[in-house]
């Protein structure tokens, strides 16, 4: 695999994570349990979409086929998406939404922390901005997970159910492949497997404070970041997200 090909895949992975998760979070708009959460969720979605513009913008530049970040977001089909399966899981309830956010934010902030030291200056520059946002998202989602885990019996049960449901989607974050080997060697991005220890430490600390039990299975669904197999949910999400661009191609908006 050439360096540019690996780089392109890596940037799609970063940008598709934030695009798809940002879409999911934005679905809450106007429907959150309390006004402060409406504001916080919109803010998180906004940060994620902003990061998408940067990652997919750089991806398009490296692809060098005259595409824009918008072309990549709105005109690729499901098999070309490279986001973690976790990001496309439907919101279900506020508990699952916040648990999904916490599981993602933990990985994201560790990953971005490493990327600020990337040998590629463009990657480091994006990470420098995004890592501040991710650190804030993590602070918020961790606090909420603790508050709801250690809240009422109902909130505890809902958070445990959310964790149990989402747990099989965690392992995919740490599966390395050819793309990762090329980038790790070049010092562009860390080897995903190398982040697991730090991730588990944060999870253990926060989830014990939340009085939640981490499932002991290490089984992991995969196929999102490689593109081999997404969930059924992604197609529906794209149908909605891409509809205008596809129905009225070539327009300026």
């Amino acid at each position, binding site marked *: 695999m050439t360096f540019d090909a690996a780089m392109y895949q890596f940037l799609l992975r970063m940008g598709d994570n934030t695009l798809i998760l940002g879409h999911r979070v934005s679905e809450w*708009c*106007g429907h959150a349990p309390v006004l402060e*959460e409406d504001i916080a969720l919109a803010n998180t979605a906004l940060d994620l979409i902003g990061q998408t513009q940067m990652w997919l913008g750089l991806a398009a530049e490296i692809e060098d086929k005259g595409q824009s970040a918008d072309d990549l977001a709105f005109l690729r089909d499901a098999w070309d998406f490279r986001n973690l399966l976790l990001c496309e899981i439907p919101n279900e309830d506020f508990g699952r939404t916040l648990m999904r956010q916490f599981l993602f934010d933990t990985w994201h902030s560790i990953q971005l922390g490493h990327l600020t030291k990337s040998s590629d200056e463009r990657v480091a520059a994006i990470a420098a901005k995004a890592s501040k946002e991710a650190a804030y998202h993590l602070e918020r989602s961790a606090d909420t997970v603790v508050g709801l885990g250690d*809240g009422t019996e109902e*909130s505890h049960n809902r958070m445990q159910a959310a964790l149990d449901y989402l747990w099989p989607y965690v392992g995919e974050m740490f599966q390395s492949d050819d793309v990762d080997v090329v980038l790790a060697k070049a010092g562009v991005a860390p080897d995903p497997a190398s982040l697991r220890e730090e991730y588990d430490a944060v999870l253990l600390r926060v989830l014990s404070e939340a009085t939640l039990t981490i499932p002991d299975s290490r089984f992991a669904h995969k196929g999102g970041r490689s593109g081999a197999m997404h969930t059924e949910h992604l197609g529906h999400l794209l149908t909605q997200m891409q509809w205008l661009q596809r129905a009225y191609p070539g327009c300026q908006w």
Partner: protein
Amino acid sequence: MYAQMIKSEATQDDPEQLAAFQARIDAGEKIEPKDWMPEGYRKTLIRQIGQHAHSEIVGQLPEGNWITRAPTLERKAILLAKVQDEAGHGLYLYGAAETLGVSRDELTEMLLDGRMKYSSIFNYPTLNWADIGAVGWLVDGAAIMNQVPLQRTSYGPYSRAMIRICKEESFHQRQGYDAIRRMAEGSDAQKKMAQDALNRLWYPSLMMFGPSDKDSVHSAQSMAWKIKMNTNDELRQKFVDQTVPQAEYLGLTVPDPDLKWNEARGHYDFTDPDWTEFYEVLKGNGPCNTDRLAARNKAWDEGAWVRDGLLAHARKRTARKMAAE
């Protein structure tokens, strides 16, 4: 404007105290939460600020309707930022209302069970992408007409909330105009969307100012108290005068065959909105009333476990802290 048909409460206070209060208002002084105020002033303000706050909250729904379908990343980000601002406006306004001795939860309950209203405009649907531009241009535009003068309202916390909010609203209006301009200059299909949005939203926007002054009860007391700064007809005329040239610039047609410039008056003559429709919308018979209120009730009911959980956790934490001390 986000507060319509606010009924002024009659006041039965000591005439001397009332006169002194009125003198402060006439002198341009600000009334602060700890100051004496007539009961009618307080109640009218709660109703008005509360209705304004509810409008910001319910207003998230028609715009939120398009976030997941926004056509570019940039437009999606702009819309998310706008809707986030609107929720923030709700927060400042509930804060201002709370200084009058009513809690946000009480106000929310009154919205949810229909005792309090929100602006009629949010009972209309957003049906094509150009509606998002049109909402910024027309709805935020109409809101600004009312809110800019309210920066000088007599109640301090309300005035300060308006000053913060107005800056963001004018930004929304410019962004909305820019979005619909892009459509009006675009393909035939995009032009059609822009015209369709204007056709549907023009009269509901005019309704935002409330019924004609001759039919508008209770205005006089609110104007004396500087809770209401202009008459409904003044503001509506100002809005039409400002908006018609903008529509012309876009090459869009305002859906009013009788619209024309009146040289003698120095204003546009225009057709009034259908007030029967307006009163139907207020009664709950607008195209989206039921769904809007159902959506807010669902969010509130399904969020109960979250609010309870966070509250229970905060109590446990305080108890643990006290036990440790």
